[in-house]
Each structure stands twice: as C-alpha cells, then as structure tokens.
C-alpha cells in the first residue's frame, strides 16, 4: 500500500493508522462476493481433488481472508506504532 512509504513519523498518528482500508476491503469483496458468484467457471479447474469453485467457497476464500487479515494487521502495526501505548 502507498502509505508504506512514509511510516510512523508521529506527526499525525491518528490519521495514518485510521486510514480507511480500501485495498483490504476490495480484497474482501473479491473473495467473499465475486469468487463464490463465479463458481461455475471456476469449477472447470480441479485442485487437490476438489472443483476449484467449491474449494474456494469451502476454504480457499477463508485462507485468502486470513492472509489479508495478517497483511493488514502488520501494515497497521508499522504505521500506527506511535498510537499504541
């Protein structure tokens, strides 16, 4: 994310770590709404014995959400270091 470049200078700690999480929410919309909706075209592919569309709705999208959660939490830790006391 762009805000990576200027991290915790402490000038406006509130504004920084409170930036609206657009990218993370975009990823949320993709994995939670778009991927399950596109199940029919995904099902053409098979992964570890599952049709891909079924796999994504059953666990794949959840794994992706976990990655988004970890990335977003680490990013916010960095840019919001000044705020948490």
């Amino acid at each position: 994310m762009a805000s990576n470049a200027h991290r915790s200078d402490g000038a406006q700690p509130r504004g920084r770590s409170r930036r609206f999480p657009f990218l993370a929410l975009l990823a949320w919309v993709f994995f939670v709404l778009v991927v399950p909706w596109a199940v029919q075209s995904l099902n053409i592919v098979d992964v570890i014995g599952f049709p891909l569309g079924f796999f994504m709705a059953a666990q794949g999208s959840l794994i992706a959400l976990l990655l988004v959660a970890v990335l977003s939490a680490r990013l916010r830790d960095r840019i919001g270091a000044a705020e948490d006391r």
Partner: protein
Amino acid sequence: MVHEETRTGPTQAPAVRGLALAADTVSAPFLLGLSGAVFAWGYDGLAFGLGLGAGILLLQLLVAPFVPQMGAASVPELFAVRYGGTAPRTLAAVAVVLSMGTLLVAQLMAAGLVTARLLGLEIGAAIAIAGAALLLNFVLRGMAAATWVRAIVFLLMLLALLAPTVQLSAEWYGLPLPQIAYGSALSQIQGLEETLLEQDLADPAVMKPMLTPFVSLDPLNFLGIVLGLSLGLAALPNMLSRSFMGASARAARWSAVWALLFALVLLSAAPALAAYAKLSVLKLVAAHTDLAHLPAWLFAYGRLGLVRICGAAATDAASVAKACAALPDASAILRLQDLTLSPDMITLAAPQITGLGPATFGLVAAAVLAAALVTAHGPLMALVGAFGCDQSDRSRLAPLAVGAGALIVAGLLAATHPASILDVATWAFTIAAAGLFPALVVGLWWRRASAPAAVIAMILGLGVALHYLVATRYLSVGFFETWQSLSSAGPTAREIFGELKDAWLAAARGPARDAAWTALDAHAQDIANWWGIGNLATILIALPVGLAAMILVSLAWPHKRAPETAS
C-alpha cells in the same frame, strides 16, 4: 459483575482472546447448523461458513481500530458516546434486544436438541432444562464468562467436528486431514447420485446434487446470506463488549487475526462432516435398504421430529411402513426422495450416520452442550446490559429479573420451533446488520455522520428488516397479495397460487380447510418476495435503505458538535 472481565482482560494473550472470539463467532447454533446446511443444500450451504469467516475480517478492518476509544461497555453506550442524546442510545438498545433475543432463541433450540437427545426427553422439556441450567449459571457466576472459559469451549467445539472427520478421513481414505481428504468423498457422492438416478432410487425433480451450485439458492440469495452474516457479525453486540474489552488497538486486531485462523479450521471441517454424512446416507439408499430394516438412528431422531420418511415422522418401523404404503408410488425399498433429514440434526447425528462408535457421539454431544451453555452467555449479557442493568452493581435483583425474563420468553419461542436453528441464528445476525451496522460503521468512519441520521437509519433499517423477515415467513399469503407486482414468481407459480387460494376458500371448515391453508401457505412462502430476495437474504433490502438514510440525512442535517470518534 460485568466488569469482572474488564479487570482480567488485558492480561490475556491475543491468541487466547482469538479463541474466545472464535467461540462467540461460531457459537452453538452454527456448530450444529453449518454441516447440516451443506448436507441439505450442497454448495449453496457454504454461504453460512463463508459469511462467518468474512465477518471476522470486517470486524478487524472496520471496528477494531476504534477499540481503545471505546470506553463504552456496550453498543448502546457506544452510540451514546458517538452521537449523544438518548434517542440513538435507546434505538441501539432496541436493536440489541431484538438481535440478541433471537440469538438466544437459537441457542436454546441448540441446547434443547442436545439435551433431548442425551436424556431421551421431548424437545419442550429439554429446552426448559437447558434454560434452567443457563439461568443457574447466570445466577452463580454472574454475567461474565471469563475469556479463558470461552477459549476452552472453542477447543471443545473444534474437537466436536474434528473427532469424527479425522477418524473417518483416516479410515476411509488413509489421510487424517479432513479438509483435504473429503475431496474423494465428494467425487464418490457425485458417482452415487448418478447411480441412484439410474436405478430409480432418486427423483431427479427433487434431488439436489451436492456439487452443483445455485440449486437451492440463486446467486443473489447466496450473496445475501454471506452479507447478512458478515455485516451482522461485525456489528454484533456481544463481540464488541466481550472480546475486545480492555485491549489496545494492536491487541484487538491480532485477536481478530487469531480468531480468523481458529475459525478457519472449524469452518473448513464442517463441509467435510457434511460430505461424510451425505455419502453414508447415499450408500444406505444405494444398498436397496428394505423399509423393515432401517438403521436405529433414523428412529432416534425421528422421535424428535427431525426425520421424516414418506412424509411422516419416523417414530418406529410400523409407522414408516404405514406411511410409505399409503404413497401412490409405494415401494418396499427406501428411496432418496422418501427420506427427509432436518439440517439441525446432521452434526449431532453424523457419528451414527457414518457408523462411528458411541464414544464419538458422546464427545460431540458433550461439546455442543458445553458450547450452547457457555456461548449463550454472550447474548444474555448483551441483552441484560441493553436494559441498562449493568451499572446497578448495588442490587443484583434487576439484572437477574431481566435475565430470567429473557430466558423464559426465548425458551417459549424456542419450544415452538419457529424454523431451523440455522435460520433463527441467521435472523439474529440479520437484525444486528440491519439495525446497527450502518449507524455503527458509518458513524465510526465518517466525521459528518449525525445523530438524526443514525436515528432514521436505525428506524428504517430495523423496520424494513423486521417486516420482511416476519412477513415473508409467517404472513406470506398476505405479503404476496400486497406485493404481487414486485414478486419474482413466474406465471405458472401465480396460477398455482390462485388455484390453491380458491381451493382454500372453497374448502369446508375443519381439517380439509387446514390442509388447504398449509398447502397455500407453503407455496406462498416460495413466492412472497421482492425481486426474488428470500427471507434469509433480507439484508439486501435493509442495508441499502440504512446506508442511504445514513448518508442523505447526515448531509441534509449535519451534527452540531464534532464527534470524538471520527478520524
């Protein structure tokens, strides 16, 4: 008494908080219902697990950043801090009572079902016992269920799903990793479904192939369920007040990450259990099972009204034989379309359906019961808090009276079995999403969000959601007649409605009229909708209304003072 947890809160590691948060997220109704949804609806049933997982991330992204400033102990207090005045606070309390009351009904249904099965009681008596146990717990331990208790309960819930699935994965496929092994079960299910159709043991008109998407729900309703659960979870009152209390922003977001990880393990095991149960049921039918030699578990659950064979409750072999002989196309062999299993029973019955020993059943039942008793504390506490009882530490009488009253009302509602456990729990989340989500999240992130906007958004969101939830399910005939022009029903469905209505009007008083009404009502439930949006997807209507009210009214009627919580 509420503040017990606040005191112990900060010492808990994020991983422990995460376990507790995961227990509150999944809770007993979903532990019982998730596998059942996938069993009954196949792919479409995955919407529920996905919605819960998605909700934890929303909670982390949208709500957790504001945790340090939430000195408020409950959602109504938070609304009072953010918007000031009494109206936002009162309306938030109404939304909390409605959503948490509904969740409590689902919790009591879950606890009642397990108690009934364990003690061999009728459901009504079992719900009374479960409610009494909850009340006793509430009286003895006060309102707080310590974080570590809920953490341990989550481990038990995990065990309830993993014990049968790991065992079966190892036995059937030699790979004790259910999340991967059940892929083989899915392809076996596909093969068996075709075999049953070829052998005339299944009816292509009613069979729902497990892997085919959008048979039970269209994409719109699938997304509606996912949205309702995830937005509801992000705004769910017991999440805010319990799991994040006393945490720094950093601890709050890492608790949510841990919760998502733990919930992921559980949510991804639920479809595996569903697949194994489905495979066993299909095998039972494929074996040309004689109606005189049905397995005992069918009757154990049939006596609780959860198994229907040939349209009648499967209480014993004689009544099954009688019901099946009465069918126009009678058969001495069990066919797939003759057998209806309630989704409520699948998680609990899976050990017996799949032929595992009684030890596994005991483990699963004990874990579900513990989960129901402990996770029901959350809604109960939020409900009592919404009545403003949490400040009155001097007298314990008021919170006790409110708690006991709530349990009695919820218990009476649970005993009427208003719908499946999963449906009732989904309603609870939908009410929270419709009533609280727009005002909460827009209020946290947008400085200009004003108190009048929050009040109007809550009234409209709650009003629309409640009307739609109740009317499409319980007043469906009237709803369809009022909103005919908006319904997605095709010309044939409309014709059938007209015929059924004429039949009902023409029927003589007595059983014939009741039967005609049941048929009319069942048909009306399918077509009573606006633009094809089903009962469980109500949030698709309530959310746009709430968000639009929030934004438009805020612009037209700005707040006087700058709120502290916005960035």
